[in-house]
């Protein structure tokens, strides 16, 4: 949330909101409620019938489970309104601006939107083009998984079902509730503290970088690349996202070569943002050799003059290895071993001779 908030007051509201859930024991209550529903006499009987294989018994059980899920999410919306209200009460006792809670609702309402669509689209050719290995326009083929996508028509019922499964009710409604409360309390907005904002922006940058590093460490390479492209849009001169992009390309290539790409590679999905789907399509389109060349050329183009940390050496070594540049790979390995004799990434080099 640090990465999406704009100032400390907004982050403070988020923390206050979660604390309110904790203090009111919403989570525990929700678990109890859900457990009671699932262990009710009615559900037990339905399960017994299904086990015996009675006519229509499975359908009846699944319908009941679906009803419980809808009920559960409706109950949790009630908890959200309560947590919002209590969070505002907490905030008014602090130095933070309670009115920033309304801005948080705007942010949450748009958080799933396509970042690049609002900025003219994700230009993959611009993002991945290098003079050493130029981007090929054939990599940008039309959406391949769309043959049956014409079927993804949201009927009114389906839309209602999807909305009802959301844990957080509509943000505009929550915003209106909180605005009413703030007016009733008589709290006034506070002036922006520029020093605080400066400090927060530094934290925001670190949070973005940490998130990307965590995605890479979790082998969620495609999301790591996507978030890195977003980070580059906000911090164009930063080398860290370039490092993650080049390294993630190399990791994807090695997974393909070992035939374990299924563990790390997502599939295009109609519910993903168009930009994210476009990125997945690009990686699906690339052959093993193309991925290797892209990683190799990307890192050498963008990491010239980069700080030589452990991850840098690992990226250079791996990209050289998959591109067939054995001598260069050995040089990077030797440099790493000389500089980081007790390095944390030693095992990675050992496991990828």
């Amino acid at each position, binding site marked *: 949330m640090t990465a999406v908030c704009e100032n400390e007051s907004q982050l403070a509201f988020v923390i206050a909101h979660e604390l309110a859930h904790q203090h009111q024991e919403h989570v525990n209550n929700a678990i109890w409620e859900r457990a009671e529903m699932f262990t009710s006499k009615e559900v037990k009987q339905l399960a017994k019938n299904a086990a015996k294989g009675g006519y229509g018994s499975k359908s009846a059980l699944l319908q009941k489970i679906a009803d419980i899920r809808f009920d559960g999410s409706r109950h949790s919306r009630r908890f959200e309104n309560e947590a919002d209200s209590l969070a505002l009460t907490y905030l008014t006792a602090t130095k933070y601006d309670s009115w920033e809670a309304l801005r948080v609702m705007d942010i949450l309402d748009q958080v799933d939107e396509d970042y690049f669509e609002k900025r003219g689209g994700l230009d993959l050719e611009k993002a991945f083009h290098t003079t050493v290995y130029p981007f090929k326009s054939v990599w940008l083929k039309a959406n391949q998984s769309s043959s049956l996508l014409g079927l993804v028509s949201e009927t009114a019922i389906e839309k209602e079902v999807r909305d009802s499964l959301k844990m957080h009710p509509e943000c505009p409604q929550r915003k209106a509730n909180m605005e009413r409360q703030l007016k009733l309390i008589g709290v006034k907005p506070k002036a922006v503290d520029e020093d605080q904002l400066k400090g927060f922006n530094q934290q925001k940058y670190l949070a973005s970088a940490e998130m990307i590093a965590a995605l890479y460490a979790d082998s969620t390479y495609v999301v790591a690349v996507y978030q890195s492209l977003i980070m580059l849009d906000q911090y164009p001169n930063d080398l860290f996202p370039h490092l993650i992009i080049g390294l993630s390309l190399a990791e994807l290539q090695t997974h393909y070569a070992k035939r374990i790409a*299924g563990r790390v*590679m997502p599939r295009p999905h109609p519910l993903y943002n168009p930009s994210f789907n476009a990125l997945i399509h690009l990686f699906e389109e690339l052959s093993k050799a193309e991925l290797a060349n892209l990683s190799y050329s990307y890192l050498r183009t963008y990491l010239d003059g980069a700080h030589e940390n452990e991850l840098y050496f690992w990226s250079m070594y791996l990209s050289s290895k998959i591109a067939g540049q054995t001598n260069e790979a050995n040089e990077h390995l030797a440099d790493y071993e000389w500089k980081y004799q007790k390095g944390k990434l030693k095992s990675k080099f050992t496991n990828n001779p």
Partner: protein
Amino acid sequence: MAVLLLTLQTKAQTTLIEDVLSLQARSVGYIIGAEGLAGYYSFYEFDKVSKTENSYILMLHDNSLNLIKKITINRPKNDVMIEIVFNGENFLIAFLNKSDLELVVYDKDGIKLGSRKQLKLGAADRMVLVSSDDSEEKNNIVFGLGKLGFLKNDSYSGKKEKYRIEAYDNSMKNIWAYTSRYPGKATEIVEVLAANENVVALSVSRVKNRLSKDITMSIILLDAKNGNPLIEKELKDGKAPKTLINAFVDTASGEVVFGGEYFAAGENVVNGKPLGIYFERYNFNGDSKGYHKLSWTKDFSKFQKSSKTGKAADGGYTFFHRMFKTSNGDYVLVGEQFKSAVSASGVALNVAALALGGRTDAGLAKFVIMDMVFVNLDSNFSLKAFERVEKTQRNYTLAKGWEFASSAAVAKYMKANGFFDYAFSSVDYERNRVFASYANCARRKDTEDKKKTDYIGALVYDNGELSTDKLPIKSKGTWYHVMPAKPGYLVITIYEKKAKTLEMQLEKINF
């Protein structure tokens, strides 16, 4: 910075379906759409509704295995899904139950739009329906005609002598029917080679009686809107007969290409030996646009030594499974080499039986499946390349009598019964790539752990360069099935009866 919705799987290329009470191999498959592969389906029994009815789930997945639709259909018990086709708007499903065939059209929301029944089919008909070769991206009975509706090949019957093709609209109302125009007595078998909202391409094999080896083949092109014939001609070059292997509809150029083998004048296509392959091109008005021939001796021998009748130096013939046109105008043919050989065990059994004063049905010949073949032709059908890819040979003993049949006849029989290793192929038009897959196994000496392992071989013909890949089958489950996928991929489905799960894996071909 936007935070991505990560509630969906962002690291998985597998779809797992649970609570699958029972599932037959036929109940999982791919959906043929207007432009080829449209997605996948699985149709399985989910619940019992009554003594006579079950509840089935029809799950539809797109090319990336994402679940697009889950439709509950109540059908009579023991219904078997024979085929499914998607015409771009609606689905047609062919159900067989005991002796009744029912065709049902559903819209994209699973609402039934219409149906048509064919009652009390004979045993021969039912046999043909359930044993149709499904190794290619082509249906055998039902086809899509785009927004016009659907087409049914009503000629699978073993008893009917003449063929009949019927077209229906999306509510299963009959639009037109085309029946044989042959005036005399004959048994005719028709194959729908290609169908779309413009044309329907058929091949017809005709014999005067069931025992006759004098087969004539014809090609027919119908106007899909009204069933009017645009072309109807016998495959003959003067007195030289021809066979038909495949047809290819090129919507972009508005052409239909028929391809097959040609023989010497006076030859018989059952016993005779082909001299080469030919291609005939027609536009959608039925006008001829070209006729091209490639001889085994003059043309193919530049790339591989072969006899006048196509027999390669090592004794193999080539059967062409599919033909594609790429965006640069080239044609790529995917084939497989085979040969007939003496079956030592068959001979031994026959000798032993004779010695004991008896008989045996053991065949004397075996069918040996050899290497995969890629042939690249330019836009004028001149041969550019002929590539062979080695794989483990497989032998099948032929039933008695087949030892006297021609290579072409034997190959057709083997193809119809799914004995070739070839599984399917696909084309990436924009990148001029053709992908082909086949099922094979590695012999003990090929494997590290010395065990025989099944694998799926994948071949990639990329702008004239051929590369290969082998995907080992690690888990076979109760059964497994390999299906075509978007270019560069294939799908492996594994059913585990005990766990009642169906897993669909999208595998990328390494090249």
